């Protein structure tokens, strides 16, 4: 390690700490914290007014590679992640071929290492081909170089209760977790939009909240029964939050995530039939949004996960019912959370560090990520300017796709720099 690898970040505020301080990074770790931290040859970054968060960790990212490199690649998706302040992402399994073998998860993992923008932790499929009938080789994926611990058929629900039970039980052998996409398939056949006033008016097939809540209730009971870790993906309804609160009050091993878009947007945006607002699970009502914010604030929902779902232009420039589900989110996540949670007084920045870094890393069993900033900790961190004036979101970014639902919306804040093991991946808001 030469001194050129050292960075002195001056005048930065660490949430939960006392006043502005300095952070010294060297050898991939945080070597010193304090107003007097110094190093004669370190490069200096003036961080007046900035806050430092442990590098953000996303539990739910679609990188699309292999198979849909027209929408996103590991290279472009992780670049978007770094610009959003992330130092680790979990790559979902619904690629083509599906990440249901050691070969595919190792390929994705290696692509992530080669790209170098952030750590890429592959998620393995629960069932072969996401088919929902036979378990994939979960243990082999766990033992592979990719060390898979999170398994999900995301996009599809593991609807068969027996299969779900077995999957939950089986992954106990290697401290795995099943991340469930909670969607009863029968209750959502042809569904297009949250079932309510908007779906009734727009003539779009309704997507009832109970289709999500019923599966979550069942899975919580199953997790308790077999004593296994359940993680609930992208919780979208007030009722889901209530069920999770109840399950947690029992001490059951259940965790959950919420997306930035479900914290900010509602189904009323579908009024113009622009499929950029079409997503699975669907945008819900203002009451759901308010309840999800409360649940994230009180810890019922453990973390924010983006469900970054890039799609090419033609997948969205079409009739609503023909369009693909999903929206991008890596580059805007932290700004949306500031708007929805911090500026509303529901969560402080220490809370954001917990919900966007510490807890998702713990749920994902990621070593070296989500470690609170302290001497000796890995130098994974995000420098953020919460006072940056609100600017309208532009669709153009590092992601290959443009399907952000926040385009034109003014959001506060700015990711200034991201460090991955002491090396900047983003400086002055730009990729290094």
């Amino acid at each position, binding site marked *: 390690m030469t001194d050129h690898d050292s960075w002195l970040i001056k005048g930065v505020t660490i949430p939960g700490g006392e006043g502005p301080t300095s952070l010294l990074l060297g050898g991939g770790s945080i070597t010193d914290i304090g107003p007097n931290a110094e190093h004669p040859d370190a490069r200096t970054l003036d961080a007046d007014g900035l806050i430092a968060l442990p590098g953000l960790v996303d539990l739910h990212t679609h990188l699309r590679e292999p198979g849909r490199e027209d929408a996103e690649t590991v290279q472009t998706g992780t670049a978007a992640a770094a610009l959003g302040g992330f130092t680790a992402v979990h790559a979902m399994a619904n690629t083509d071929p599906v990440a249901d073998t050691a070969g595919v998860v190792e390929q994705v993992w290696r692509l992530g290492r080669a790209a170098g923008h952030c750590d890429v932790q592959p998620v393995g499929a629960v069932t072969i081909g996401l088919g929902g009938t036979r378990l994939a080789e979960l243990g082999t994926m766990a033992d592979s170089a990719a060390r898979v611990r999170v398994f999900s058929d995301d996009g599809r629900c593991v609807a068969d209760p027996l299969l779900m039970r077995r999957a939950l039980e089986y992954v106990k052998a290697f401290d795995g977790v099943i991340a469930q996409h909670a969607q009863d398939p029968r209750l959502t056949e042809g569904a297009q939009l949250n079932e*309510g*006033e908007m*779906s009734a008016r727009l003539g*779009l097939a309704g997507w009832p909240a109970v289709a999500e809540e019923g599966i979550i209730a069942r899975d919580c009971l199953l997790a308790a029964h077999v004593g296994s870790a359940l993680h609930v993906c992208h919780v979208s309804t007030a009722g889901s939050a209530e069920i999770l609160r109840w399950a947690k009050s029992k001490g059951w091993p259940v965790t959950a995530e919420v997306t930035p878009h479900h914290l900010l947007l509602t189904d009323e945006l579908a009024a113009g*039939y622009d499929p950029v607002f079409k997503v699975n699970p669907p945008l819900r009502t203002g009451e759901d949004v308010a309840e999800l914010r409360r649940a994230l604030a009180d810890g019922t929902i453990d973390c924010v996960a983006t469900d970054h779902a890039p799609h090419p232009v033609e997948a969205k420039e079409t*009739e609503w019912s023909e369009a693909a589900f999903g929206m991008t989110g890596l580059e805007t996540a932290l700004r949306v959370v500031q708007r929805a949670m911090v500026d509303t007084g529901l969560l402080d920045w220490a809370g954001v560090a917990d919900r966007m870094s510490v807890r998702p890393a713990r749920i994902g069993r990621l070593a070296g990520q989500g470690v609170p900033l302290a001497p000796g900790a890995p130098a994974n961190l995000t420098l953020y300017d919460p006072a940056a004036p609100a600017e309208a979101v532009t669709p153009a970014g590092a992601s290959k796709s443009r399907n952000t639902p926040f385009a034109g919306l003014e959001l506060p804040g700015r990711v200034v720099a991201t460090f991955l093991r002491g090396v900047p991946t983003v400086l002055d808001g730009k990729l290094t």
Partner: protein
Amino acid sequence: MKRHLISAADLSRADALLILDTAEELAQLADRPIKKLPTLRGRTVVNLFYEDSTRTRISFEAAAKRLSADVINFSAKGSSVAKGESLKDTALTLEAMGADAVVIRHGASGAAHRLAGWVRGSVLNAGDGTHEHPTQALLDAFTIRRRLKGPQARGAGLDGLRVTIVGDVLHSRVARSNVLLLSTLGAEVTLAAPPTLLPLAVGSWPCAVSYELDSELPKSDVVMMLRVQQERMNAAYFPSVREYSRRYGLDAERMARLPGHAIVMHPGPMNRGVEIAAEVADSVRSTIVEQVANGVTTRMAVLYLLLGGTEFPATGEA
């Protein structure tokens, strides 16, 4: 009036009355030996039909031709659409051809809305999925007003009239447009249907709801029967066609419970013996054939007003 007609909610009461009154003028002209007017000469109207609907297409075609517009019929079957061309690319093609108005029928809710974002001409929604069919509601309102208030009722709304819409409201674009338009015009609308065929959030609509038909009949001025697709029973919306018919079908016995002046409507095509009995469909109360004729005049009025055609001679002058 707005540039497009996509939802009945686009129409204020004044807009709707203007259309009905214009249609009334045009209906007078229809009695002349030469039915054609020069008002839209040189304008191009495209009928873009993604669903088979001969009756609606012919109605729009006749309306445009009677106003001397050039009509292009673009059927999705056997066209580039069948080869997978997107709606957007079709829209850009029509745009390049200089369409002044596009009449679209499409199986996807919101298709007309999307199209309006891609073309400069006016978009007329001729039925989009389970969303709306505003010209059907206009011709229904026109038919109701003519039958119950007479042809001299210009300027009048439907205030105080009680309209009962019966059947598969959940999947009906006709019902959605009629609830909006008829309530805008002052009618009191009641939906009568099994709970499975009503939207869960129907309480937010400007209408009343009943799960039974019989109690509504004696107080109805208008009964509008909706087509019920028999395959719905496969998705458990109702147990059998016969049970549906017994509980919600309009037969002669039920028709006898209507007030003497009440009319029976159906947007067509009918399932005789399911939602409506043959003797009801063919009775003097039935407006089903008039609705077809009124469809042409109402659509002429809409095209005329949206495209801003030249004046047509006032009735009585010729």
